């Protein structure tokens, strides 16, 4: 793999990914989820992962357990030379290899298909264990949603990973404080993530999930403790990069209208200063009044087809 010229830095890559993601979501849901994870994926694909997108057995593996952010993964693969960027145009179209959740075997660079939440950590643990049994230096990275961490299967796998002492396993939680139909804190009562991972035998750190230097710094420190898997709680903003989308539940579902597209892309291109503070995952407080977007807002497209919400 090599970064394309236009994405020499992780910030360049993140901006490309965001622009792609917004364009792609003229079809389909989950644009907010993909924007939220764009910086994490950009930092991973622009250097933190070893040999991503190759078939080298010792490459680091990436499991996008929150598979509904697939668009960001596809864009990262396209902008790092793994898949043809032209494929992005057909995202979700009839016959496209790019399904709403990462597919198996239709394009290179995807280590495992996902889409049902809570399955990725056990798979990543299996990969990390396999890598250890054959002495390759490969590591397994898994990106989870904060809502996803309600699935018991996450904790079931977390216990096994720590028992196997998989310090080549790294979980990154995209902690944007929103899930499918509520704020995360309203659904789990505001349980903090890091102490839970620690109670399950992991070493955990929190960081700003949009600050590339901070992300890189924390990624360089894995494993945080010898013999323990590492959890990174990345505080993020759902929809990050387009002000209209930020921290709004509706953008889990809406698609981008043709009318809004230029404005959104311009915003991303000109985007320098972080427009909103990453949410603190352990407090659901400050932005609660924005809990759900109003029923009809000017400038958004029809509801996307993917996730069981939308007009009844």
């Amino acid at each position, binding site marked *: 793999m090599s970064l394309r010229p236009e994405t020499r830095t992780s910030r360049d890559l993140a901006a490309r990914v965001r622009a792609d993601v917004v364009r792609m979501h003229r079809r389909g849901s989950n644009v907010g989820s993909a924007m939220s994870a764009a910086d994490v994926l950009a930092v991973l694909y622009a250097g933190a992962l070893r040999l991503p997108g190759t078939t080298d057995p010792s490459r680091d593996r990436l499991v996008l357990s929150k598979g509904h952010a697939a668009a960001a993964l596809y864009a990262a693969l396209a902008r790092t030379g793994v898949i043809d960027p032209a494929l992005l145009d057909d995202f979700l179209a009839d016959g496209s290899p790019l399904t*709403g959740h990462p597919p198996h075997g239709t394009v290179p660079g995807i280590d495992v298909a996902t889409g049902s939440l809570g399955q990725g950590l056990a798979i990543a643990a299996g990969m990390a264990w396999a890598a250890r049994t054959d002495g390759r230096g490969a590591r397994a990275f898994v990106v989870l949603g904060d809502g996803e961490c309600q699935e018991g299967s996450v904790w079931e796998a977390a216990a096994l990973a720590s028992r196997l002492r998989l310090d080549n396993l790294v979980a990154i939680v995209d902690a944007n404080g929103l899930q499918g139909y509520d704020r995360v804190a309203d*659904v789990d009562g505001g349980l903090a993530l890091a102490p839970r991972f620690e109670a399950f035998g992991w070493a955990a750190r929190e960081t700003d999930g949009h600050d590339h230097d901070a992300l890189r710094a924390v990624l360089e420190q894995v494993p945080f403790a010898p013999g323990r898997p590492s959890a990174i709680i990345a505080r993020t903003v759902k929809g990050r990069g387009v002000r209209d989308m930020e921290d709004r539940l509706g953008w889990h579902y809406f698609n981008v209208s043709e009318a809004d597209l230029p404005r959104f892309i311009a915003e991303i291109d000109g985007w320098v200063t972080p427009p909103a503070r990453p949410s603190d995952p352990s407090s659901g407080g400050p932005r609660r009044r924005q809990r759900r977007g109003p029923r009809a807002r000017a400038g958004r497209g029809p509801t996307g087809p993917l996730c*069981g919400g*939308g007009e*009844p």
Partner: protein
Amino acid sequence: MRAAFLDALTERMEREPDLFVLTADTGFHVFDDFRVRFAPRFLNVGIAEATMIGVAAGLALEGRKVVTYGIAPFVTFRCHEQVRDCLCHPRLPVTIVGVGAGLAYGPAGMTHHAIEDVAVMAALPGMTVVCPGDPVETRHAVLGLAGVRGPAYLRLGRSGETPVHAGPLPSFAIGRAVDVADGGDVAILATGTMLATAVDAARLLAARGIEAEVVGFPTVKPLDLDRLDRVAARHRAVATLEEHVASGGFGAAVAVRLAGAGWGGTLRVFAIPDEYATHAGSREHLLAGYGLSAEAVAASLRDIVRGRPLRARPGRPGAGRAGGSGAVRGRAGATRPGGPR
């Protein structure tokens, strides 16, 4: 179907003070008003389908009735054992609503396709399985399920389905088939989201002079055996249509009955072949690739009625179990939808 579902459910919430609704983090724009209005009896349990079923069981053991809501694969496959042990064993009055029947969420990929859900729910002793064919049947089903005492699975499409029935069906009942069209040349039995396709196929056949009887089976379990027996008595050619694999589905249940009685006709089970879609595609695109469009169904039935050979077509009966000549076969031979063509 979701609008019809919501309306009927709202009526039931008004009438039944012991009815609770749980969702596994799904229902944006569906329950927005509902959840405010019925707040103490509505709960988003979070992304926690197994817990949703367990909590439903706990509520039902304490005398409540419960409707649980979620995307079809997640409320069937993900929590299958909880449905089995916590609901079916004690026969609790909990209705599991799965949205996204079959390939409704086509572009999302296989994790969001529900093409085996009827099989895994119908296999469970005591489970009622209802697959409405349009918004009218959906409304009847939701209201009718109030009278079912054990667990039930209600399989919905999503939004915007074409209504098949012009208006309410006075004789609708859970467990009873619905007569849709009359004809003596072939019978088309359809369940759920394939009902409209059955009607369209019958129209295409009519244009070629073939008269098809169309019967809807919104309830897959318990199956309306009396109605089925009457179909068998009248027809030598019967087709079943379902948006589901053949294995354990509607057609297989029909086959058990027909093969049990010296029938001697020809049953064609139209079903999704034994494979997952590998590429993106709308529901219509994927179904067409499987030979499950109204056109393909009509063409195939024309051949049956005219006595042409059956075996070599896509959407062939028994695809779910087709095993070639006793050896393990590779991918099923049906047209693969969504390939890079």
